[in-house]
C-alpha cells in the first residue's frame, strides 16, 4: 500500500505558489474543500487561476479568496450567487472564463484520463464556440474542447483511506471525482480518514492512484445555500 497520508494541512499544501492554476471540487457550497480554501486564504497566495463550477458566496467557499483578491482568473459555469464576484468581473479586476457545466466536468475528466481533446455539442452556435473547431458527426454539429491543465486539485471526500481511496456522499460528489488526478498534485480532505483495508474495494469511488495527499479535515461548516423544507403537517 502506497501511503498518501500527510500529517498537517501545511504539508498537504506544500508547493502552492502564486500564479498557479487550481481546481476546486464542489457544486455551490456542497462538497467544497473547506479546509484547503481556508488555508489558501491564510497563506495569502495570489494571482490564482481557479477552476470550479461556482465561486462560492461572498463570505464562504471561494468567495473568501475573492474577498482577498487572490484570484486572477476564474473558470466556472455559474457565478450568480456572489456579488463581489460580479463586481470584480464587471470592473475587469478579475478575468472570467465561463464554460458550460458539462464541458467543465468533461475537461476535468479528460485531464484525469489523458484525453487531450473531445467533441461536444454544448455551446455550438453560441459565443462559447468562437475560435473553436466545429465538426459535424452524423448530421449534428459539435465543438472541440481541450483538457484542462492544473497544478493543484483540491478535493473534498466523505471517507478516505491511507492509500488515497475515496468515497463521496450524496450530491457532495459532484465535480470532485473528475478532478482527482486532473492536476499535478491532488490534495484530498476527508471527513473520516481510515486505515487501508477498511473500505470495501468494490465500493471505492476514486482509487488512490489519482491522489497524492490526503488528510482529515478539522471541522466542516457545510453551509446550506437554499434551505428549502416542507412544513411538518
Amino acid at each position, binding site marked *: 500500500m502506497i501511503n498518501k497520508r500527510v500529517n498537517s494541512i501545511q504539508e498537504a499544501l506544500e508547493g502552492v505558489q502564486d500564479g498557479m492554476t487550481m481546481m476546486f471540487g464542489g*457544486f455551490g*457550497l456542497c462538497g467544497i474543500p473547506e479546509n484547503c480554501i481556508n488555508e489558501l486564504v491564510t497563506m495569502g497566495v495570489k494571482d490564482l487561476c481557479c477552476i470550479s463550477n461556482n465561486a462560492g458566496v461572498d463570505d464562504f467557499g471561494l468567495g473568501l479568496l475573492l474577498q482577498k483578491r487572490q484570484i486572477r482568473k476564474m473558470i466556472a459555469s455559474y457565478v450568480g450567487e456572489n456579488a463581489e464576484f460580479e463586481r470584480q468581473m464587471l470592473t475587469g479586476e478579475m478575468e472570467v472564463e465561463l464554460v458550460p457545466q*458539462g464541458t467543465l*466536468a*468533461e475537461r476535468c475528466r479528460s485531464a484525469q484520463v489523458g484525453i487531450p481533446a473531445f467533441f461536444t455539442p454544448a455551446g455550438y452556435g453560441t459565443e462559447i464556440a468562437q475560435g473553436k473547431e466545429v465538426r459535424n458527426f452524423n448530421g449534428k454539429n459539435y465543438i472541440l474542447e481541450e483538457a484542462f491543465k492544473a497544478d493543484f486539485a483540491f478535493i473534498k471526500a466523505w471517507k478516505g483511506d491511507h492509500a488515497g481511496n475515496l468515497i463521496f456522499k*450524496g450530491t457532495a460528489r459532484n465535480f470532485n471525482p473528475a478532478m482527482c488526478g486532473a492536476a499535478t498534485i491532488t490534495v484530498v480532505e476527508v471527513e473520516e480518514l481510515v486505515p487501508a483495508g477498511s473500505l470495501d474495494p468494490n465500493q471505492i469511488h476514486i482509487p488512490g492512484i489519482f491522489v497524492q495527499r490526503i488528510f482529515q479535515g478539522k471541522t466542516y461548516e457545510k453551509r*446550506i445555500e437554499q434551505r428549502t423544507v416542507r*412544513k411538518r403537517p
Partner: protein
Amino acid sequence: MALSKEQIAQRIAKEVKDGYYVNLGIGIPTLVANYVRDDIAVEFQSENGVLGMGPFPWEGEEDPDLINAGKQTITTLAGASFFDSSLSFGMIRGQHVDLTILGAMEVAQNGDIANWKIPEKMVKGMGGAMDLVSSAENIIVAMMHTNRAGESKLLESCSLPLTGVGCVKKIVTNLAVIEITDKGFLVLERAPGISVKEIEAATAGTLIIPNEVPEMTFS
C-alpha cells in the same frame, strides 16, 4: 386570464409521460414536479448528480450533502442514485434524459434560445443550460410571454447571446402553448379567457394561428 407561474407548471406537467426521465431547470420548471400525475412513473434528474429526486425535506431533516441544481435541500425516493458531474452530463449529452424543461429570456421562432447573459448587465453564467439545450431531443421552455418592460420574449430572432440554436420544440407561457415550426410560432392552445388577439399583441415573432385554438386544460 393569464396563467400564474403555478398554472404554467401545471400545464407543462401534462407533457410529462409515463417512463420519462426529466430534467427541471430553476424557477417555474421546478414547480412542474408538484403537478405530475401520480399514476405514472417519472424520475427527476438534477445535473449536480442525482436521479430520483423526491420532495423537499421535512423541517429539521435537511442534509447539506443533498441538494438539487438550484442549491435547494432535497430528498430522494426509492430507486435513486448519486453520481458525479461527468456521468451526470453523460446522461444529458448521451440523450438518456427524455424531457428538459427550462426557463428563457428569449426564444426565436427557429428554436434558438437565450437565457444566460445580458451583456454588461447580468453575467451569471450558463451553468448546465448549454449542455441541456444542445443535447435534449425534447425541450420545453417555461416562461412569461413578455418581460418586465412588457416586450415579447418570443422573437423573430434572439437579441441576447444565444444558449443554443434551433433546439426549442415547445413553449408554455402565461398566455399560450406554442410549438416551434418551420414557418414560425404555431399557437396550439390559449390560456383560459385569453383571446388570440391578446396573444398576437404580445408576440413579436411570426405567429401561425389555426382556425381553432382551444383553451388549455390542466388535467
